[in-house]
């Protein structure tokens, strides 16, 4: 008994000691909070593959960034907030440069920690919309656009189809959303816009547990018969919603999804009737870009990726790539600004704040046509960049509009107010301690 206990104790001590040692070399450590298990894995897997494949490609092709190798470590969150925080606590001691929580719930938890632990958070086009206010949230970045931008872009597109935003008067717009931090985030703006333009909003919350059973929500949709439907869905909710929409024969070209509802598998679930389903996007789809060809050559064909052959270049995979492009470019910017090769998290923050991906740089990266220039500033941590609407043609996503700006003029003042509100309800919220990092 005693011996057994002793042995167990020794093993325990050895195990806890070991976890801390692993990463001390000269490298850039990037933890990726991913989820390849659970009900959100359908959306999480392509994102995780895209993110890690682009960074691995930089390691293989260029030997890292600025000659320093990247250490990429995935931590499985299962889209679970507790596990996400655990991943954060478990990896931050290793010198993490930046966190990509990939869940609005986890992002909300990490936002107050970021300024204390001095590690930036890159919540690319998700998380707290108000985090775009750099003065209030110096450690949080959400380029290229916030949820509120996304929602305003959808309303704008609907307005265009109706022949002007004024024609929205008296229309009915349904909003079906994941009943979590993520889906609730755009509601204040939606209510504001409804007031401004005189349309009516009906809400259809889908609880996380009921994602795969939305028949009651869609029954209500059929009864209410809204003119347009907007979806804020993720994971297993998306394919289910598309399928249910086709079942009640909802006109798919009037069904809009935010960019996170635009997985290829999501639309495919609806079969042939899903044609015309529209979602927002801010990057190209498909694999016809030199950078993606490099990923194929150095990573996928070399067996260093988990992506299945036919999923390479799908929408959400490319979303992951886009996210990693932002990380890599911020690291590069930080290296240029500080003159150091091995940067730390505070340099990384400065790099993110001075992120300026120009048209030339996009060409240089081999991503011409894949993305629009991205510029982040000290005050504006999002940039409210242009997006476009894409349509599902049964096989793949095709652009259905030009790039256009969201209603920045409407969204910006609301964001400021929301940031103030956040500060008030989280008092005492720390004043901005870090200065604006000036670009070189």
């Amino acid at each position, binding site marked *: 008994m005693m011996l057994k206990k002793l042995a167990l104790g020794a093993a325990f001590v050895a195990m806890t000691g*070991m976890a801390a040692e692993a990463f001390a070399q000269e490298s850039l450590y990037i933890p990726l909070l991913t989820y390849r298990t659970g009900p959100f894995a359908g959306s999480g897997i392509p994102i995780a593959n895209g993110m890690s494949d682009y960074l691995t490609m930089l390691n293989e092709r260029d030997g890292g960034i600025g000659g320093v190798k990247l250490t990429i470590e995935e931590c*499985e969150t299962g889209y679970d*907030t507790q596990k996400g925080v655990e991943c954060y*606590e478990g990896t931050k001691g290793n010198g993490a440069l930046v966190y990509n929580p990939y869940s609005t719930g986890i992002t909300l938890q990490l936002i107050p920690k970021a300024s204390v632990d001095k590690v930036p958070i890159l919540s690319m086009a998700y998380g707290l919309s108000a985090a775009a206010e750099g003065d209030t949230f110096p450690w949080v970045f959400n380029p290229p656009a916030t949820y509120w931008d996304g929602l305003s872009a959808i309303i704008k597109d609907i307005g265009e189809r109706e022949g002007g935003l004024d024609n929205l008067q008296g229309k009915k717009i349904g909003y079906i959303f994941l009943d979590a931090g993520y889906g609730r*985030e755009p509601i204040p703006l939606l209510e504001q816009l409804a007031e401004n333009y005189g349309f009516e909003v009906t809400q259809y919350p889908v609880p996380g547990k009921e994602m795969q059973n939305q028949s009651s929500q869609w029954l209500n949709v059929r009864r209410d018969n809204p003119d347009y439907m907007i979806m804020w869905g993720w994971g297993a909710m998306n394919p289910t919603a598309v399928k249910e929409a086709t079942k009640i024969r909802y006109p798919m070209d009037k069904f809009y999804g935010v960019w996170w509802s635009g997985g290829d598998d999501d639309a495919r679930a609806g079969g042939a009737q899903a044609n015309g389903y529209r979602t927002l996007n801010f990057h190209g789809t498909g694999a016809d870009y030199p950078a993606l060809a490099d990923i194929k050559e150095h990573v996928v064909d070399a067996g260093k990726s988990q992506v299945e052959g036919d999923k390479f270049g799908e929408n959400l995979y490319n979303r992951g790539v886009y996210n990693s492009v932002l990380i890599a470019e911020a690291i590069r910017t930080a290296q240029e600004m500080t003159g150091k090769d091995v940067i730390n998290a505070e340099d990384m923050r400065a790099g993110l704040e001075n992120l300026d991906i120009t048209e030339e740089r996009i060409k240089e990266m081999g991503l011409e046509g894949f993305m629009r220039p991205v510029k982040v500033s000290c005050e504006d941590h999002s940039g409210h960049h242009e997006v476009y609407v894409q349509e599902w043609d049964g096989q793949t996503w095709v652009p259905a509009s030009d790039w256009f700006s969201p209603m920045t003029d409407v969204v910006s003042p609301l964001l400021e107010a929301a940031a103030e509100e956040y500060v008030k309800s989280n008092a005492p919220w720390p004043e901005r301690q870090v200065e604006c990092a000036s670009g070189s």
Partner: protein
Amino acid sequence: MLYREAGQFKTSYAADQAVFPLREDRVGLVLTLLVAFIVVPVFANDFFLASIMIPFLIFACATIGLNILTGYAGQLSLGTGAFMGVGAYAAYKLTTFFPEANIILLVVVSGVFSAGIGIVFGLPSLRIKGLYLAVTTLAAQFFLEWCFIRIPWLYNYNASGAIEVPQREAFGVIACGPAADPLTRYFIVLCVTLAITFLMKNVIRGHIGRSWMMIRDMDIAAELIGIRPLYAKLSAFAVSSYICGVAGAMMVFFWLGAAEPSAFSISLSFQILFMAILGGLGSLMGSYFGAAFLWILPVLLRFTLPGLGIDIGAETVQHLTFMITGALIIFFLIAEPHGLARLWQIGKEKLRVWPFPYG
């Protein structure tokens, strides 16, 4: 040889009725407390404190709460998660109204609200028993969870629907919020959990605890010899919900820092119930064992499997953790259906006669 009562004479009633009558047990307790109060704070890093020790103690506290109800009073409950939620939301609202108040005090008071709700949902236990009661507590779980989502007043009309812990002080130290030191939070959680354990140990030995156990073992017989089921059952519900509420408040304020309603879902209730069953129903010690087994083991597996130099994906680690933990649960429940606490007891009994078991 090392662990036996030979030669320890009790010369007073107090010594005879002590919680730990054996000197070896007292030494063991002191050593454990030394480890908890000195060794762990000195040697542990932030990750160990924040992701292992703090949640472990909070889960142990919640498991004690459930153990009072299910293990001692015999009322099966599936509403633990919701009762924890009541405590958390109560503490959140209290600190909104009284931002200056000592947060530890508010956390301790928040359990009172949880106890109130617990009594209300405990009323059906006077009429229905066993699995049927489990169903009514399940109703409590769903109803309260619905409240957490649908009553915006509870989360101060926050757009994200989550409660976010503001920075609060206790005795001049930052006790919660993002700037709070994990060590401070650890000490608070440790002290509250130990205080509750100590209190409960004595309540259970007294006439209240005995009345609970009588109700558990045979309620008709208990009624015949003068135990009033109304008081016994409802007090068990109240005490249990109080402890769960305090645990829930600690969970949000000293561990997570923010919580969505889904944090208090049915899966939390089951998690606590499994901790109680695996640890041993009707044992305070078992509550600690169960919490340690179901919380610490998976976390350690998750973070050490990659550290062993085996190159496997993060999701494989997750699957492996599920499989190993699941297999161990089955193994331990086959080895000892009465839980880890019973194994501990058997171990102690064997140790008493070691090394001459037939002597």
